[in-house]
């Protein structure tokens, strides 16, 4: 089970993800993140992976899909606090993180 909670500030929205991100979880996370983005229209969407204990390539699909979507709305996506297991997946997909 994965969960997400949001912290918004002017121009920015941070999504704190926790739990296991697989294809099952990604479907619900996608809906929740997209709904928040539609309400707040942030310039910067940050996905925080500190609490993520498992992620497969469905998480990569989730990230790339959100990135394209926020890009189309004129914003940007960044990734923060990715643990080792998540970083391995990002490296494989050539996704940059801080």
């Amino acid at each position, binding site marked *: 089970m994965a969960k997400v909670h949001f912290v918004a500030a002017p121009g920015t929205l941070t999504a704190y993800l926790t739990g296991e991100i*697989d294809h*099952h979880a990604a*479907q619900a996370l996608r809906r929740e993140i997209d709904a928040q983005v539609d309400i707040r229209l942030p310039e910067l969407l940050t996905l925080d992976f500190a609490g993520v204990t*498992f992620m497969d*390539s469905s998480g990569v*699909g989730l990230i790339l899909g959100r990135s*394209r979507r926020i890009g189309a709305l004129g914003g940007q996506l960044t990734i923060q606090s990715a643990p*080792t297991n998540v970083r391995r997946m990002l490296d494989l997909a050539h996704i940059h993180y801080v």
Partner: protein
Amino acid sequence: MPKLVPVNQTRVTFLSRSVNEGYARAVLAAFLTQLDPTVPQLADIKTAVSEAVTNCIVHAYPGTLGPVQMDITLFEGGVVRVVVRDRGVGIEDVARAMEPLYTTGDPEERAGLGFAVMQSFMDSVRVASRPGHGTRVTLVRQLERRA
């Protein structure tokens, strides 16, 4: 390579519902405890198997549900083999399907990296598929001894 001697084996079958992705990983982790794998090794195998199982759930039975079967065999010397199979639509061109970034799924959702992940996290990945009959993915990983 010496002949592999099986020491333990289990099989589970489940319906191609996405909630079973977590179920398959839980079964795998529980069965592998007897080998006392390191955390990174267990993470690698769980990720690869999650990819194979997810493919059966996402791609094998478009618009319907069908059975997914997972066989886990442990061999002497710490070799783990996981076979994941479905009776779904099959893959027309396996070599092409295995290319990184290739996907027939929703590009908003799929990254086309499932087979690339399996290949980078396991020692060997074999795919056998017959269009209209189903797909079988065989994943093998030798556990390194703990330092």
